[in-house]
C-alpha cells in the first residue's frame, strides 16, 4: 500500500488554522477585517476570558444571505476576489477565503447574519468545523459572529496561549490599530467587566488619536503629510506593435503618506508604538521600519524608537499583500522608492518642526510615566498600575520638574479618560476645526512661541551649571544647553558641509599612529578607508592587521584618534545593512564632531558661551545632537508662571 494519502479536509483546515489563527487576537483580526470589508460603520466587540472564552463581533455591514453564509465556511470561499487577475489589485483587507473555515475548525462559532435587502436572517452554529444548526430568524441587518472556546479541540495549541491579561492586551492593541486606521467608523471594545474602547466616528485621524490616546499624546506628535507621483518602474509596457488599439498606458498613480510622528524627546524602548498602515492594512514591514530608523538617525539614539502612526496609500497594483497568511507583511513593487519617500518625508517634517524638548515632556517621556502610548498596559489590573503613577515622584524628579506637581497624575488621568471606561470626553470640535490645516491635520499652535531658531539666536547666557550646562534666558523663558552636545551639533554640520565641499582639514601626525584591528574591523576599514580619507583621515595598512594613521581630522586630539577610529569601525561592523555612502558620511561626521567637541566639566568664558549659542542657532537642527540626545531644554515663561501659581 502506498504511503501517501490525501488529508481529510478537517485536518487540512486545522493545519491552515495553525497559520491563520495563532491567538485570540488573530481571530479578532480576521473578523474585524471581514466587518470592514463588509462596509460596516459600527463595530462592537465583546471579549471574555481574554478572548479564549468568547470573541463576539457585531457589525452593521452588508450581511450575508443564507447560501452565502453556508458557503463562507467552505475553504477558499470568498466574495472578495474572483480570479487570479484580482490578486494584483486587491482592495479588500481579506481575500484568501481561509479565515472563517480556519476559525471554525478550532472553535465553536455562532453566526447571525442578515443581508440588508432580505426579510429574514440566518443563524448558524458550527463546532470544530461541523455545522450543527442552520435556522432562519429575524435579525437586525449586519453580521454578528461569536467565537467561543477557541482551541477547544486542539489542547496543545491552547496550552501555548498566554495569560488572559496578555491576550487581552494583544486584542486591545489590535482594536486600537484598526480604530486609528478608520476614524470614520465607530468602534467599541468591551471586556467582561468594562468598556475598554469607545470611539465614536470622527472627522480626522488627529481626533481619533485624541479619543484613543488623549491630549498629551496628541501634543507630542507632529502631523505629517506628503505625496508624490509614482513613476512606473515595475512591469514594462508591451511594445507598441503588440498593443491593442484601445491600449492605454497604465496610470502610474501616486503615493501618499500621512499620519503622525513623535518629537525626538519621546523615546520608546521597542517598536510597539510604530503603527504602519498600508492601504488601511496594519503591517509590520521591515522596509518601512528601516526608513523610519533612517529618518530618525542622528535625532534619536540608536536603540530607542519613536512613536509613529503612518498611513501609506498607494495604488493596489503597487503593493502585494499576498505574502503571508497573516498578511502582516507586504511587498512593494518599488521598494526603494517607497523607502526613500517615507524617509525623506519624515525627515523633512522633523527638521521643520525643530522640536524643543521641555522639562515636563522630558519627565513624562520616561518609560514608566507614559502609559498613553501603550494601550496594552492599561489592560493590566488597572488600579495597581495607576497607583504606581500617582505615587509621589522621587525627590530628584521633583526638583527637575519645575511645573505644577500634579503633572504626572493628570497625565495618567488623561490616558484613562481617552481610553478607559468613562464616556469619551467631550471634544471641542470648534477648536479643532479652527486649527485644522488644509491636510486635515491638527496643528497645535501656541501664539506666544517664537520660531525656535530665532529664539536661540536671542539667547543670553547666564552661566554654567557644574561647568557642563549653559543656562541662558530670552524672552521665551529659561533654557539649559548641554555644552558638549551643542558643540557637537555645530561641528557635525560643519564637518558635513566641509565634506560636501571636499574641504575637510586634516593635521598630519609627526609619528604615524599604529592601530591594531580585528579581522572584522579590517574588513570595514577596507570598505570605508576612501570615505575616511575624504574626512581627514589618512591611514594605510601597515603589516597584517595594523593600520598606520598619518593624518587625522584637525581639531581631534591625538589621544582621541585611536578611540574614535575603532569606535567607527565597530559601529559599521555591527550594522547589518550594506554600507551606504551617505550613511557612512554622516556617521563619520558624527564621530569626528563628538570627539572634537568641548567636553562637559569644562569652564567656559562668557564670550565662548555666546559664540556657542550663536553657532548653535545657525545650525539646521539645533535641538538634538547627532546621536539623538536633546541639546537644549526649555522652560517657558508660561511654565514658570504656572509653577509659581501666577496663572
Amino acid at each position, binding site marked *: 500500500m502506498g504511503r501517501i494519502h490525501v488529508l481529510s479536509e478537517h485536518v487540512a483546515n486545522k493545519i491552515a488554522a495553525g497559520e491563520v489563527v495563532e491567538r485570540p487576537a488573530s481571530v479578532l483580526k480576521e473578523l474585524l477585517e471581514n466587518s470592514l470589508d463588509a462596509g460596516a460603520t459600527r463595530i462592537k466587540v465583546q471579549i471574555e476570558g481574554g478572548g479564549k472564552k468568547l470573541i463576539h463581533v457585531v457589525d452593521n455591514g452588508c450581511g450575508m444571505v443564507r447560501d452565502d453564509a453556508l458557503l463562507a465556511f467552505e475553504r477558499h470561499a470568498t466574495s472578495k476576489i474572483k480570479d487570479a487577475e484580482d490578486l494584483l489589485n486587491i482592495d479588500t483587507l481579506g481575500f484568501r477565503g481561509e479565515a472563517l473555515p480556519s476559525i471554525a475548525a478550532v472553535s465553536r462559532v455562532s453566526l447571525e447574519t442578515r443581508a440588508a435587502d432580505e426579510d429574514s436572517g440566518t443563524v448558524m452554529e458550527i463546532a470544530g468545523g461541523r455545522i450543527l444548526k442552520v435556522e432562519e430568524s429575524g435579525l437586525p441587518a449586519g453580521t454578528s459572529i461569536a467565537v467561543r472556546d477557541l482551541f477547544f479541540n486542539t489542547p496543545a495549541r491552547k496550552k501555548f496561549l498566554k495569560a488572559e491579561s496578555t491576550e487581552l492586551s494583544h486584542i486591545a492593541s489590535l482594536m486600537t490599530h484598526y480604530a486609528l486606521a478608520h476614524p470614520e467608523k465607530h468602534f467599541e471594545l468591551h471586556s467582561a467587566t468594562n468598556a475598554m474602547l469607545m470611539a465614536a466616528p470622527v472627522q480626522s485621524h488627529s481626533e481619533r488619536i485624541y479619543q484613543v490616546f488623549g491630549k498629551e499624546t496628541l501634543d507630542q506628535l507632529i502631523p505629517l503629510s506628503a505625496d508624490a507621483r509614482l513613476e512606473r518602474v515595475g512591469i514594462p509596457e508591451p511594445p507598441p506593435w503588440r498593443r491593442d488599439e484601445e491600449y492605454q498606458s497604465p496610470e502610474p498613480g501616486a503615493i501618499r503618506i500621512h499620519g503622525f510622528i513623535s518629537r525626538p524627546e519621546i523615546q520608546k524602548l521597542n517598536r510597539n508604538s510604530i503603527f504602519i498602515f498600508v492601504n488601511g492594512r496594519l503591517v509590520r514591514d521591515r522596509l518601512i521600519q528601516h526608513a523610519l530608523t533612517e529618518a530618525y538617525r542622528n535625532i534619536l539614539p540608536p536603540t530607542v524608537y519613536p512613536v509613529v502612526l503612518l498611513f501609506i496609500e498607494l495604488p493596489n497594483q503597487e503593493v502585494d499583500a499576498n505574502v503571508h497568511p497573516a498578511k502582516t507583511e507586504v511587498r512593494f513593487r518599488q521598494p526603494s522608492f517607497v523607502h526613500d519617500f517615507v524617509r525623506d518625508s519624515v525627515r523633512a517634517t522633523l527638521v521643520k518642526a525643530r522640536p524643543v524638548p521641555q522639562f515636563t515632556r522630558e519627565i513624562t517621556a520616561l518609560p514608566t510615566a507614559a502609559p498613553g502610548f501603550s494601550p496594552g498596559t492599561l489592560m493590566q489590573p488597572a488600579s495597581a498600575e495607576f497607583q504606581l503613577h500617582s505615587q509621589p515622584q522621587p525627590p530628584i524628579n521633583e526638583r527637575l520638574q519645575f511645573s505644577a506637581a500634579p503633572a504626572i497624575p493628570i497625565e495618567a488621568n488623561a490616558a484613562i479618560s481617552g481610553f478607559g471606561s468613562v464616556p469619551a470626553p467631550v471634544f471641542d470640535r470648534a477648536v479643532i476645526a479652527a486649527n485644522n490645516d488644509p491636510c486635515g491635520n491638527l496643528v497645535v499652535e501656541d501664539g506666544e512661541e517664537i520660531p525656535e531658531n530665532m529664539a536661540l539666536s536671542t539667547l543670553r547666557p547666564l552661566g554654567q551649571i557644574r561647568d557642563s550646562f549653559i543656562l541662558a534666558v530670552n524672552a521665551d523663558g529659561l533654557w539649559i544647553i548641554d555644552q558638549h552636545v551643542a558643540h557637537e551639533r555645530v*561641528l557635525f554640520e560643519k564637518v558635513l558641509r566641509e565634506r560636501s565641499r571636499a574641504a575637510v*582639514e586634516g*593635521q598630519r601626525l*609627526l*609619528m604615524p599612529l599604529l592601530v591594531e584591528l580585528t579581522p572584522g574591523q579590517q574588513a570595514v576599514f577596507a570598505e570605508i578607508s576612501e570615505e575616511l580619507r575624504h574626512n581627514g583621515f589618512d591611514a594605510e595598512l601597515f603589516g597584517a592587521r595594523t593600520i598606520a594613521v598619518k593624518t587625522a581630522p*584637525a*581639531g581631534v586630539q591625538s*589621544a582621541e584618534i585611536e578611540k574614535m577610529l575603532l569606535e567607527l569601525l565597530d559601529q559599521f561592523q555591527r550594522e547589518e545593512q550594506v554600507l551606504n555612502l551617505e550613511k557612512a558620511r554622516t556617521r563619520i561626521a558624527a564621530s569626528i564632531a563628538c570627539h572634537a567637541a568641548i567636553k562637559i566639566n569644562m569652564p567656559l568664558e562668557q564670550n565662548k558661551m555666546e559664540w556657542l549659542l550663536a553657532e548653535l542657532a545657525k545650525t539646521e537642527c539645533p535641538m538634538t545632537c547627532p546621536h539623538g540626545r536633546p541639546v537644549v531644554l526649555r522652560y517657558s515663561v508660561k511654565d514658570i508662571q504656572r509653577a509659581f501659581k501666577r496663572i
Partner: protein
Amino acid sequence: MEISVSKQDLLKELTATQGVVERKTTIPILSNFLFEAAGDKLSITATDLDLSLRTNCPAKIKKEGSCTIPARKLYDYVKLLGDGEISIKLLENHWVQIRSGRSNTKMVGMARANFPALPLFPAESAIKLPAQVIRNLIAKTIFSISSEESRYTLNGALLVLKPESITMVATDGHRLAHVEHVNSKLPVSGEMKVLVPKKAMSELSSLLSSLLNSSDVQVVEFAKDESTLFFRLGSRILTSRQLTGQFPNYEAVLPRDNNKSVTIHCDEFSGAIQRVAQFADERSNAIRMRLEKDELKVSTSNTEIGESEDSIETSYNGDPMVIGFNSQYLLEFLKVVGTGDVRFEFKDAQSAGQLRPDEATDSEYKYRYIVMPMRI
C-alpha cells in the same frame, strides 16, 4: 616649636612655593606647608605629591620642632603684615600662633605626621648644570608639550645629558621642538635621558629666573633616583616624580631631505601669520602658505568668515608649492625665537616642515622646530 623670622625672608620663600601647593585639594594635608625649625634655619616644604619644593630661610630658633600651617591662608596673611619680625609658635592640638607687631593670630594646623615624607637629595650623584642654559632650553621647548593627559609620555620633555651637550625635546604628536646646547662640559659618562614633567619644568623655570636675578649662583644641581628627579637651586630643592615610559623616537622624525628653504624675518613672518590667522577656522587654525618665486604668500579662506592674504618678500627660487599649517604652532615658535631671521625648510605638502633660527644669530644653541603640515 617656637621661632622668629623676618617678614621679608619668610614672604620671599612662601611666594616661591605657591606654585607647588595643591590648589584643588583632595588630600587636606597637601594644602599645608610643613615648617621645620632646626639650627638657625626654618625650612618650608610644600608638595602636591608629584612635585615638591623645599626651601629655607634664616630664623631665630627659640625651640626646635615642626608644624604644618594652611598654605594659602598663611601666605595671604603674611603679605598683609607690616615689616618686621614674625614669631611663630606651635600650640596644643596643632594650633599655630603667629604674632607680628600688634597682630596676633592662631591658625588651625594639622598633625605633622600626616605630611608625606619626601625623598632626600642625593648630593653625591648630583651633576652641575648651567642655570641659564637650562632656563633657555625649557623656554624653547615647553610650549610644544602635549596637554592631553592621556598621552602620558608626551606630558613632559625629554632631557638628554651627554658629556658635550644638553638636549631637550618636546612634542605633542603634531610638532616637535628640539634644542641642543653644545659647548657644555658635563661629568656624565655616555648618555643620560630623563623625562621631566611639564609642571616641574614650568616651576623650575620660574625658580631659575628668581635665582638668576637675585643671587650669583649660576648652576642648578641635578640628580635622580629610580622614580624622582631633583633640582637644587641654591637653598631650594625641587623634587619631581619622574615620568616613566617610552618617549617617541624623535630622531626618526627629524627631516633630513628638506630641499627647499626660505629665510624670513621673524617679526615680519609672525605679523603676517597673526593677521591672516584671524580668518582661519577657530578649531583648526589652518593657514595656507604658497611659495612662489621671490615671494611667500600666507592666506586663509573661510566661507563663513572671509579670506585674507599677506605676502612677504623672500629670496625663494625653488619650485612653487602650497603647504598648510596650523598657524598657532608656527606663532608659538616664532614668539620664542623673537627676533632675527628664521629658515623654513620644506620638502613637499605632505612632509614635515622644519623651522630654525638662522645659524648666525644663535650659535650656542642648535634649535629646530618640526611641524607637520595640514591637509587643507
